[in-house]
């Protein structure tokens, strides 16, 4: 039986002093890591079948201290897992939320919202949304750490080597302005797929879009496996998750230099599609083909017809020389 796990493990808040959209590698006291296992979750929207046939539900995160809402003094932060007080900080603002919107489709199709990733019957799309999170520094950005766990060995019994590949596509019809697809593969087994774009506002347009970057694949660390042991992965894989060589993690960051940080819009939404088998590929859509055929083909047909008509007309005209001269020679 195939099984795999795609997990959001940590929410990372970091102060981007150099404005490079990179999570500092050395522990600094302005980087806070909030494990997803320390969030509590409520079902904001129960699973329902939408009018377009998709099944959808929304999970919203909150901290234990939310209902108590004490005024927490900014303490000295540490890189270690933050306690509940620090966690409550990011949800301080009114209307702040961290939401996961999950959508599945029984049939092949596309999502309605940008980036309009493809559905197969074997995948699920997760929209990761950060709204109005509070940070005490003005140059704060948020990132998320994600893990792809695949215990299924390949045909030779070896653990699969995960990799991230980028597919170029000339057709950006479904995600205007985005010509690439990132595929994080456990080859022939499972995948996580996303377009390297996230949106800075609820209205998703090209002008509100920005870049999604990620770090290289790294093996699971002790800290990560602690987090995973508290998650659904534990009963799935059991035992020592560190032994699982078919597991990798990346840090995903949002934004580009000089975009005035998370505080510019206080909103980020990123969609990732996870599923079994091969990731769906975007082909050139039928609309484009029809438009090209009509827009270019018809005129060229007309032009060719005109050229052929001209040639035929020219060929039909009597040749100027070689015709019988109107004059009769006097001296025969």
């Amino acid at each position, binding site marked *: 039986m195939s099984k795999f796990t795609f997990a959001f493990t940590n929410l990372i808040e970091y102060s981007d002093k150099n404005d490079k959209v990179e999570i500092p590698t050395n522990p600094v006291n302005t980087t806070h890591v909030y494990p997803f296992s320390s969030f509590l979750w409520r079902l904001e929207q129960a699973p329902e079948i939408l009018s377009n046939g998709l099944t959808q539900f929304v999970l919203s995160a909150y901290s234990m201290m939310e209902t108590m809402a004490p005024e927490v003094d900014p303490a000295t932060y540490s890189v270690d897992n933050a306690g509940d007080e620090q966690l409550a900080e990011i949800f301080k603002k009114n209307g702040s939320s961290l939401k996961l919107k999950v959508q599945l489709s029984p049939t092949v199709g596309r999502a309605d919202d940008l980036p309009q990733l493809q559905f197969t019957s074997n995948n699920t799309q997760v929209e990761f949304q950060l709204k109005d999170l509070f940070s005490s520094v003005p140059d704060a950005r948020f990132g998320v750490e994600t893990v792809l766990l695949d215990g299924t060995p390949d045909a030779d019994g070896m653990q699969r080597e995960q990799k991230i590949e980028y597919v170029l596509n000339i057709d950006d019809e479904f995600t205007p302005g985005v010509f690439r697809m990132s595929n994080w593969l456990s080859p022939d087994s499972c995948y996580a797929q996303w377009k390297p774009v996230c949106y800075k506002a609820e209205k998703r347009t090209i002008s509100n879009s920005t870049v999604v970057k990620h770090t290289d694949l790294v093996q699971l660390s002790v800290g990560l496996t602690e987090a995973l042991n508290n998650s659904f992965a534990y009963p799935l894989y059991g035992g020592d998750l560190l032994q699982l060589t078919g597991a990798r993690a990346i840090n995903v960051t949002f934004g580009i230099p000089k975009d005035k940080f998370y505080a510019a819009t206080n909103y980020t939404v990123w969609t990732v599609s996870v599923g079994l088998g091969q990731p769906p590929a975007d082909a050139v859509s039928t609309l484009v083909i029809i438009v090209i055929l009509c*827009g*270019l083909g018809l*005129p060229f047909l007309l032009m060719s017809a005109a050229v052929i008509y001209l040639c035929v007309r020219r060929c039909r005209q009597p040749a100027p020389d070689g015709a019988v001269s109107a004059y009769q020679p006097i001296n025969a």
Partner: protein
Amino acid sequence: MDSAEETSPLLSNQSPALNAPTGDHNNEVEYQGCAACNPRSALHRYLALSFMCFLSFGSYFCYDNPSALQDVMTEDLSLTTAQYSSFYAWYSWPNVVLSMIGGYLIDRLFGIRLGAIIFSSFCLVGQLLFAFGAFINKVWLMDAARFLFGIGGESLAVAQNTYATSWFRGHELNMVFGIQLSMSRIGSTVNMNVMQPIYHSLDGRFSQPWQQLGAALFLAAFSCILSLGCAFILAYIDRRAKRLLGADAGSTGEKIQLSDIIRFPAAVWLLCGICVAYYVSVFPFISLGQVFFERKFNFNPNEADAVNSLPYIVSAISSPVCGFLIDRTGRNIMWVMLGSLMTMGCHACLAFTFNLSPYGIMIWLGVSYSILAASLWPLVSYCLPNHMLGTAYGIMQSIQNLGLAVINQVSGLIVDSKGYLILEVFFLAWLCLALIFCAVLYLWDISKLGGELNKSASSRRKDAELAKQATEAAAKAADEA
């Protein structure tokens, strides 16, 4: 009979001797002065050309002042994006109609000399009011000023086209259009590079930031004074040349009628169609180009901006060169087709490939734009007599402005909803339409005019020679009769 002896001046050492006309073609004055002042000589034409080029320099320079000073304008006057864009909207939208009216007024009422002076003055007054509006921090006055400036600017371009055709028909007309195109780019580029330093050179002299802005715009108005001066000089040169060449006396004094417009040959409407179909596939693309290059080719904003402005820079250099080439070879319709095909190639490469360097493609786009612009506009002069040209150019410019205004909006909508590939295919479709118009024009030309529009340069020269010999022979016959 030696008619040369009869017509040579009695007092040949004086300049310029007025000769008693003995035949219609001898209304011209026998000219004895220096070559540069001789209306027949090429040198005099180029002297007039230099003034023609600077005639609309002021309008191109001042047109893009808001763009060059965008950040300081937005800050000093506390503008929203919509208010800033309105400076361009107030120029463009009225000119959908005003170019046509301006051209008609030049043909019907003012004549080319007075028309150029009047529209130059509109530019100057408009820019002065714009500066004054900034000085007293009244945005509504600035909008009204841009409207006035627009009345002058586009109609002045029509006047410039008419001057060029009137002086260079039968000579280097294509190159002249190329040079004028070049000047428009140069004017814009000089503006982009010079206005910020001008603005900052006034730092600290004014109590309010908008006063500094107003002062900088006043200084920019000097370019309009230069243009107005050129208009006066050109009026004098043109009047003198017409007097010396006897052209005014020889002309029938016809003026265009409104009904003439409806009876314009089909070629003129086809040329308008080619013009709008081509221009809407180039300029809206450049206005959306920066983000396209950032997203598709992963350029940073500076690189994307540099690539995006390549067509303008390249066309400033290549327009006169292409114009010269087209003058040598003739066959304008072929060149128009070539320009369209080359541009289609550019759009196809940008749409369907990742690997080809955008730098090369955009340079290619600049060259193809030069080819088309230098070969398209002179074609109008081959279709119509002189006294209808202002109106024709005005109509062509009006339709072009309308097309650009509408397609700019439509392009934005297409990109937001359907992405850049569909947008490129959209532009390709417009270029196909331009090609179709071109093909129809070619066929029309062959059937109606016997290939007149697409003549090669050498056959035009032959025709001119034959015509000249014919008139001389007719005059000789008239003399002898």
